[in-house]
């Protein structure tokens, strides 16, 4: 369980460049949750997630994992990094080893695992991101963009983090690459029951994968609730400058035109089911 207690972070305090990036956030992220983190550029999302594994030190407030302050003992901070895996934006830019295998093994090796254990971890991580073992001996620089991204994500998964945090894991990928990564993340979450947190600008993505959503605005936690409850508040989201899934927008307009449909529809699958239900209800199903 990850708990934030009145967490604030100020960049360059005491200078003219002083900037409060995270402002008094308190919340609890339960184990096994698939959480979406949305917010405008500069709303403090990236600053926030860097606190989860102690890359940034809070200016004030605390970060607790299972009730324990991660900054209580600095020597344990190193261990925290292995239980909270952080995948940055464009993680493929951090690949450096000669082979895919060695690159994925970098994290497990830093954990001090034996060669056999590392080997198991690498193969497991490759499977989770859907890459074949044939790629293991290739140079990561020979791969395609989507493959590189998956190798980089595997490098973090190989540490078997209890909490996996991904900052815009699908940015800049083609639709197929995006769907692949999301599908594998969902499978990973279902299989391991570990916490997964993704930062995204794509509301469809959030609606499809997540159970809860944290909306950030100007460093504060504006909303933190289930997907339904967050996307129901379309006015509030729009005031922040964010969107709701397009399909939800369609249903809100349908309702405004007098169709008796439920507007808490966030994915195309839900939409199809809801339309069929509404048609059956009005008895016009046969004309469809």
């Amino acid at each position, binding site marked *: 369980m990850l708990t934030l207690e009145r967490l604030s972070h100020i960049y360059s305090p005491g200078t003219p460049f002083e900037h409060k990036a995270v402002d008094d956030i308190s919340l609890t992220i339960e184990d096994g949750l698939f959480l979406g983190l949305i917010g405008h550029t500069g709303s403090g999302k990236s600053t926030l997630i860097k606190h989860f594994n102690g890359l940034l030190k809070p200016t004030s407030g605390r970060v607790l994992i299972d009730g324990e302050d991660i900054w209580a003992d600095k020597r344990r901070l190193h261990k925290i*990094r292995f239980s909270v895996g952080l995948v940055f934006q464009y993680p493929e830019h951090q690949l*450096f080893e000669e082979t895919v295998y060695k690159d994925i093994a*970098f994290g497990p090796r*830093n*954990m001090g695992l034996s060669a056999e254990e590392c080997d198991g971890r690498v193969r497991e991580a490759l499977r989770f991101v859907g890459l074949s073992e044939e790629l293991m001996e290739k140079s990561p620089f020979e791969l395609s963009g989507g493959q590189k991204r998956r190798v980089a994500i595997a490098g973090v998964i190989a540490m078997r983090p209890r909490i996996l945090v991904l900052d815009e894991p699908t940015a800049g990928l083609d639709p197929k690459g995006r769907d692949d990564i999301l599908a594998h993340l969902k499978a990973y979450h279902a299989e391991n029951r570990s916490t997964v947190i993704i930062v995204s600008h794509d509301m469809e993505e959030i609606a499809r994968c997540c159970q809860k959503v944290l909306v950030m605005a100007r460093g504060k936690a504006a909303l933190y609730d289930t997907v339904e409850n967050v996307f129901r508040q379309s006015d509030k989201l729009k005031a922040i400058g964010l969107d709701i899934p397009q399909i939800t927008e369609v249903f809100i307009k349908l309702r405004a035109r007098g169709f008796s449909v439920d507007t808490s529809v966030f994915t195309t699958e839900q939409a199809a089911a809801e339309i069929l239900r509404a048609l059956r209800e009005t008895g016009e199903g046969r004309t469809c």
Partner: protein
Amino acid sequence: MLKDITLGQYFPGDSFIHKMDPRFKMIGTAGLIAVIFSAGNVYSYLVVTALIAACMRFSGVPLKIILRGIRPILMLILITAIFNLFYTSGEVVVFRLGFITVTREGLIGTFFMMLRIVYLVIATSLMTYTTSPIQLTDGLERLLSPLKLLRVPVHEFAMMMTIALRFIPTLIDETDKIISAQKARGADFDTGGLYKRAKAYLPVLVPLIISAFRRAEELAVAMECRCYRGGEGRTRLRTVRAGYRDALSMLLIAACLLLIIFLNIRWPGLY
């Protein structure tokens, strides 16, 4: 964090000297150096002091910041001063202890020498305080443009400098990011011996160099797309133009130089 390193020491402002043409700032700095070195007696040092004080006043840079620039060379000044003090021969002995002799000439000479170094540092740092790195390369290019006749690729050098300066903050940002990412994978940069630490930076250097090459290639393509073909026939968005400020300061410096030469001749060797 790496970001806290400031690039150069430009101190943004809007003063008389800030508004000068960078070319004339460079010529002016050279002039100031000539003035400082030609001072030979008390009177001429007074003139130099007045001139330096005026420059400081019209640069709008706070005294505290200028003095901070002198701190790193304090040791150098001290060592030179000690050598000067003991190795200057003269007629009037002030102090003698064993083989150490301090003469009056030595004392006075040392004092002037220290003053000279401090003034030199102030004069040159005032230029970098009041000129942004981009202006500096711009000015340098225009100042050296006569060398084009000798087939020296002045424009290309200036462009290289500009690009290098432009990309320093970008690469620092990138380094920060890569360090964070590798730390998140358990990389340890803070413990172990020198060799272990140097090795720990390999996972940072490899991606950094790759990204630098990628950026270089992207920039080259972008420049070609915008039809860059070297300096020939290129015009500028912001042309620097010499104004009354530049004329005034050139005149002032020239006048000071003449005055000092006159003072030196009138009272030769007077301390």
